[in-house]
């Protein structure tokens, strides 16, 4: 690159360096004297648990936050970045974990957003579309500029985000958990694009907590823990075990020993269950499923393919339009959540903060949400027995290693992992016969995830029938005896765990019916 120009026609950033960065939030030191750098032509991965400070550090670079101490250098010149606008002017782009797209607007309109128009105050969508087509040509990012965003699949939306960053002249691109919502094939696509971009002279920062992806794509890895930089290493010398150890601060079990169990009788049966989604279309299409005592059935699929409806229908939170649901040979079709509980069903809901807990209630109140009117938590179903509530809740806090100042702390001030542990404690305390675990470790750090996984396996050993719904294929593969794949509301395939391979699962998740 003699003129230090990128194929997009923008200037390169040869080196970006952050030095001694400190960022405080009320009560927390989010980033604690961190040094970080990236060069043109490389991918530097930033690894860490939730709350380790990865996103905060990057938001400082992108001008969304301002550091208390430390300095950012671009090509060895100190710069002050006060807003995303200034970051963009410096050639820094960011792909956020939650896409920053306006669903009702088209691709071109989203790209044009916030840009100067060549026609003054009038929009120049045609010009923008033309340039989008040029850029998609260079990087093989197929996308139609006039399609509204809401009609695009998640992977395509991400392409729009990348295109927009390139359009705006990003020479350094920050990717915040870019693979979290993608199918394995889409991940491959993304990696191909990222490799091409680095070959062109872009500098990339790849934020993730998925070890195998970081090892596959990056040249260097930096690990943050509790806001501190604990480890920096060239990728070729890194191993999964050391990286996990560094992230969590103690050795972590990455593989579970799943002893084969002879599955017992069917506990939960779905017969051609259909249901309407919130959008009003058929969210669940004739799903039949059997869940036996002592087995974990994993439900894989890209988000929004009926998993949510499936969990809700079984939990009694959404009514079916046809079909039957049997719990231990009781017909429980369209029973209320309370009736389902009575029949021995426990449910770890996907929307933890809205369906799992009441944010402003205390830990103890949340712990007795379902059973507050029953023994031992109430006298005669009327007067709450606070002594018992406190005692049981304290036991749960201890047993489940829930980190909370006390049982009277409002649940919203706990971390995601600890909230999830409380939900788990509550649901398991009722000794369920069937457990629906929807996205049980989403947004939960590795340490807590590992704990939750162990608890689920323990339940399996006890003979509980478990339906594990997860978008995290690694989790599904690690825990499930059988795996079913959902696509557009229907089950498109089923594989046994020992026959499952990630390629085939990925293809099924993308809708192809693979004979198995």
């Amino acid at each position, binding site marked *: 690159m003699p003129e230090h120009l990128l194929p997009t026609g923008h200037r390169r950033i040869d080196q970006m360096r952050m030095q001694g960065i400190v960022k405080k939030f009320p009560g927390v030191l989010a980033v604690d004297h961190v040094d970080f750098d990236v060069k043109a032509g490389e991918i530097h991965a930033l690894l860490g648990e939730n709350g380790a400070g990865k996103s905060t550090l990057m938001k400082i670079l992108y001008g969304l936050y301002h550091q208390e101490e430390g300095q950012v250098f671009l090509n060895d010149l100190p710069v002050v970045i006060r807003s*995303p606008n200034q970051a963009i002017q410096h050639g820094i782009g960011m792909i956020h974990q939650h896409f*920053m797209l*306006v669903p009702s607007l088209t691709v071109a*309109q989203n790209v044009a957003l*916030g840009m100067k128009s060549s026609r003054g105050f009038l*929009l120049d969508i045609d010009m923008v579309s033309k340039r989008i087509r040029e850029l998609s040509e260079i990087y093989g990012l197929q996308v139609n500029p006039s399609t509204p965003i809401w009609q695009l699949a998640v992977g395509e939306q991400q392409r729009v985000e990348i295109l927009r960053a390139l359009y705006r002249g990003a020479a350094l691109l920050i990717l915040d958990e870019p693979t979290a919502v993608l199918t394995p094939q889409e991940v491959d696509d993304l990696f191909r694009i990222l490799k091409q971009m680095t070959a062109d002279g872009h500098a990339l920062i790849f934020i993730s907590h998925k070890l195998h992806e970081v090892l596959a794509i990056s040249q260097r890895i930096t690990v943050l823990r509790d806001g501190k930089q604990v480890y920096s290493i060239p990728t070729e010398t890194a191993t999964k075990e050391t990286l996990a150890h560094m992230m969590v601060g103690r050795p972590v079990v990455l593989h579970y020993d799943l002893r084969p169990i002879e599955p017992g009788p069917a506990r939960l049966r779905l017969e051609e269950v259909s249901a309407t989604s919130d959008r009003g279309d058929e969210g669940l299409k004739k799903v039949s499923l059997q869940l036996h005592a002592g087995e974990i059935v994993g439900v894989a699929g890209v988000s929004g393919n009926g998993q949510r409806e499936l969990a809700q229908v079984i939990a009694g939170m959404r009514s079916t339009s046809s079909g039957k649901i049997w719990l231990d040979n009781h017909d429980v079709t369209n029973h209320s959540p309370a009736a389902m509980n009575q029949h021995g069903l426990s449910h770890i809901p996907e929307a933890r903060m809205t369906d799992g807990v009441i944010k402003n209630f205390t830990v103890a109140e949340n712990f007795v949400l379902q059973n507050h009117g029953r023994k031992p938590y109430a006298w005669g179903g009327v007067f709450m027995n606070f002594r018992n509530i406190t005692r049981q809740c304290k036991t749960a806090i201890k047993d489940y290693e829930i980190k909370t100042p006390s049982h009277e702390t409002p649940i919203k001030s706990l971390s995601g992992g600890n909230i999830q542990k409380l939900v788990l404690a509550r649901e398991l305390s009722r000794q369920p016969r069937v457990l629906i675990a929807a996205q049980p470790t989403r947004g939960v750090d590795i340490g807590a995830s590992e704990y939750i996984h162990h608890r689920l396996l323990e339940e399996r050993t006890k003979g509980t029938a478990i339906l594990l719904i997860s978008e995290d294929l690694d989790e599904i593969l690690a825990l499930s005896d059988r795996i079913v794949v959902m696509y557009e509301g229907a089950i498109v395939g089923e594989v046994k765990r020992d026959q499952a391979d990630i390629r085939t699962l990925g293809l099924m998740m993308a809708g192809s019916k693979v004979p198995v």
Partner: protein
Amino acid sequence: MITDIIKASVAASAIRLATPYIFASLGETFGQRSGVLNLGVDGIMLLGAFAAYYAVFETGNLLLGVLAALIVGMLLGLAMAFISVTLQAEQGISGIGVYLFGLGLSELLFQKTVSTPTPIEGFPRINFPVLTDLPVLGEIFFHHNLLVYVAFALVPISSFILNRTTFGLQIRAVGQNPEAADAMGISVARVRYMTVMIGGALAGLAGASLSIALLNIFQSNLTAGQGFIAVALVYFGAWRPYWVMGGALLFSTVNALQLQVKTIENALGINVPSEFAVMAPYVVTIITLIFASKRVEQPTALTKPFERGES
């Protein structure tokens, strides 16, 4: 035929009566498209109506009246924006505050100045050569005051601004996904201040269209809740200027029918209790809102204050 004359005069007065609705609901459309629900429209209309009326009462200058209404409306819009955008107060509540403020202050100022409803010389009806003299059509379309035409002209202009300009794109983005707009370097607060002030100015103009063009008088609570119907019309029109205009015409037609209910009764030889006639616009409001289910353009961030997440 007598019924033709009734039809023509009902249609003509429907178009006239639509004026305040169109001004106010177009203005509200801008605010809501950017995510701010301003329930104070009626209060702004009242103060705008008084400002225009008083300016004309004192000077006889109609343009000065319009200017007064625009400025008063814009200032109240600024206040609403400050409360809801900068202070991030609950929008529904702050809007009611603005309404009560406008209601009370317009009444007070009126009592302290003019005190008795005194008619003024408002905008005259325009006589177009040839066109006004057309049978039926002339009466319906070509014999209105200036503000009527301004209101209808604002419909395509608003639609153009929202859909074809960079500012319009910013408004829509801010209303749908303020985080995304912010990340793209758009100042959410700036956009919302501007739309709420535009909304205020147009609400003021809506008031003026009552006090110095349609009724040519001011009295306590002159608007009788028209500002609230204007807010409902924005929902009814699914945040699109043309549909909003359609809604305004629907309601003004009901109004016009109600005003002429005696004439119609006499012509048709039936008798409708007047209470029903007075109720009609409000009943129609509720019924149409139930059936107005097109929600594609609904700003998802409506009523939600924006704060850059520091988490």
